[in-house]
């Protein structure tokens, strides 16, 4: 029953987004514009050669997660604001359990975040001429970080929807809490790119701990959100 309710909410989220494409369009445009700015601002930095490639890897790893964080802060706060604007919150409260609403919104937000990563990661690497040495490791880092970040943005998005100052509050509330995932995401991306790893060294031998950090963060963020969401939703 809970799973059915969760999937129904997630399906509704994705269908509504597919019809309006508001978040998709704004996030896609934001990512495209920021990558264009990155390309223009790094055009004069020589990123070829051994030293240049190292700088390129560092810039790429940091920029990917900065773009993902800011894009998420722009687009993911809408999930609960839309319910409040359309007046559908009461109907949801009456018919669905609080945790199912959170889980449904979380699935929708995480898929949207993964969509942003699918655009951001290859485009940023391409623009900066970075080659990824461990692509599967990068995929694992992106998925785990997106799950943790999706959980945080869903909960803080629900908090912000109940306040009068919606504009910049989502970023202000989310970024400090997101920092562990951000730091591990940047570290994991650097290692997956192959920064300071000899060609033969396997990713898991040297950097498996980063995946454990990201997994623990995601589990903690989901558990904390499920525990606390009832207090936000039924207040």
């Amino acid at each position, binding site marked *: 029953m809970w799973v059915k309710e969760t999937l129904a909410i997630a399906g509704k989220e994705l269908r509504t987004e597919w019809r309006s494409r508001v978040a998709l369009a704004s996030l896609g445009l934001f990512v495209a514009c920021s990558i264009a700015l990155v390309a223009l601002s790094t055009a004069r930095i020589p990123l070829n050669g051994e030293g240049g490639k190292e700088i390129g890897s560092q810039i790429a790893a940091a920029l990917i997660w900065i773009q993902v964080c800011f894009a998420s802060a722009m687009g993911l706060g809408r999930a609960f604001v839309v319910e409040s604007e359309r007046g559908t919150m009461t109907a949801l409260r009456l018919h669905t359990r609080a945790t199912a609403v959170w889980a449904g919104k979380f699935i929708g937000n995480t898929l949207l975040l993964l969509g942003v990563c699918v655009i951001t990661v290859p485009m940023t690497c391409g623009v900066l001429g970075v080659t990824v040495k461990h692509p599967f490791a990068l995929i694992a880092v992106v998925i785990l970080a997106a799950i943790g970040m999706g959980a945080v943005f869903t909960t803080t998005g629900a*908090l912000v929807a109940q306040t009068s100052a919606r504009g910049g509050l989502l970023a202000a*509330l989310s970024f400090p*809490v997101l920092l562990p995932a951000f730091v591990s995401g940047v570290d994991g991306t650097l290692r997956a790119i192959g920064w300071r790893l000899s060609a033969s060294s396997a990713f898991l031998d040297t950097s498996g701990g980063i995946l454990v950090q990201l997994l*623990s963060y995601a589990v903690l963020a989901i558990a*904390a959100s499920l525990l606390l969401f009832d*207090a936000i939703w039924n207040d």
Partner: protein
Amino acid sequence: MTPVAKGALFVFTAGCLSYIFLKVPAAQGFANPDLARLVTMHLPCAYVALVAAVIAAWHGIAYLRKRDLSSDIKSYVGAKIAFLYCFLTTITGSMFAKVQWGSYWNWDPRQTAVAVLLLVYAAYFTLRASIEDPERRAALSAVYVLFASILTPMLGYVIPTFFIDQSLHPKFAKFDLSYRMAIYPMAIALTWHLVWMFRLSVRAEKVNQAIAELELTSEGGMA
């Protein structure tokens, strides 16, 4: 707190500070052995920040369970004191880092974690300021302070202790007896200060809220 307790607190704190400045030996092996004494202030500040953060989270849970606004006030005051001591921890740590490692800021995981806690509490105060209804403000603030309390120890303790080898902070520090004799009493003195500040601030905050309610009632009456 009674005048006798206040006097005792003053004498005890003065005794601790005198011991630190007059008796604790300079630590050999440091870039500036005399300045190593700063550790005896830095560690107790970090400890009191942690205690205040636990108080904020504890009263957050209490509010969500009992919906009593006085728990919200206690949680808010706990967060304010945690913010103050995080700031003091950052300042004392930065002064030590400048002498020992040549830079006020080294992006050390624990240093960064305290800065993140400062940001978390700043976000918490912003959240409170953006909600007018006292009960809704109390519930949402309690949720945020608990959410942050569950997730930030990852950055401050778990990651630096178990995953990062290059931290400037020792993983499990062992101090000389003369340093332990300064650190533990100083921690007790600052905890005593924390209790005093907490009780005073809770009373002041209750008065502030009562005044705000009175103003709201008189505005309603005039309208």
